[in-house]
């Protein structure tokens, strides 16, 4: 039997999809409305999934207070109410699509000491979501 625990977090941020290596016309064609030079925002939902085992003394895969403070410190403090392109170092060189956001958040959380990080799933809106489970083995 495999058991995982998933916690959902929320942050609000703005971004702009734009690749400096492409022309303005190419960016416009590729990213459409998401290329608006002033950016736009989303309420991002981040699901963080941890893998077992369950500690018999606590009944837990990991203490949620520890996970909450780790996610707060490594993700939410940096991402909430920010402009991702300008305020997150990783997005100075990569386009802040939600695919790349999944990878960035996974990398920020993968060293959580109390349990194994299985997956990061992000809902950019209620209609689309993205998942990343680390590099292929």
């Amino acid at each position, binding site marked *: *039997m495999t*058991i*995982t*625990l998933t916690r959902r977090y929320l942050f609000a941020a703005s971004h702009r999809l734009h690749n400096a290596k492409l022309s303005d016309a190419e960016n416009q064609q590729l990213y459409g409305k998401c290329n608006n030079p002033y950016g736009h925002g989303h309420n991002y939902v981040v699901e963080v999934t941890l893998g077992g085992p369950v500690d018999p003394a*606590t*009944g837990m895969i990991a203490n949620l207070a520890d996970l909450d403070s780790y996610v707060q410190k490594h993700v939410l403090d940096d991402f909430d109410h920010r402009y991702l392109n300008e305020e997150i170092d990783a997005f100075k060189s990569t386009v802040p699509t939600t695919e790349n956001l999944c990878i960035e958040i996974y990398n920020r959380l993968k060293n959580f000491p109390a349990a194994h990080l299985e997956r990061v799933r992000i809902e950019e809106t209620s209609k689309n979501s993205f998942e990343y489970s680390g590099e292929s083995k």
Partner: protein
Amino acid sequence: MKAAGKTNTVLITRKIEFSASHLYHNPAFSAEENRRVFGKCNNPHGHGHNYMLEVTIAGEPDPTTGMVLDLVELKGILEKEIMERMDHRFLNYEVTELKGMIPTCENIAIVIWKLLEGQIRKGKLHRVRLYESPDLFADCYGNGAAQ
């Protein structure tokens, strides 16, 4: 239509909601340790949640009925095994299967998996997902079937 020798596995999911109370307390810990590890969940009077349970069955649709498992049958199993046992109960004191365990979301999901696994007559239990709140859930899968 499927090719010869191939299987068409379909997942079907049924949701139920039950309300129950619980508390986290390990008698092997000191009172201070219980408060530190479990925080608000250590309140000796307990507290409650509306648990949302999603039960997913994997299988091939029966050629006669078009069903993996009749949802009415699954509903009956969930009513008997889960609702009658857990709905409007204090999980620590009233659910025998949880005796000696801390009734966390993880442990309740494991107990639900064990209660249901032997009851599924057609198809196979694929996943038990238990939401303690909209922001927290545990997933339980069979051996080696993660995802």
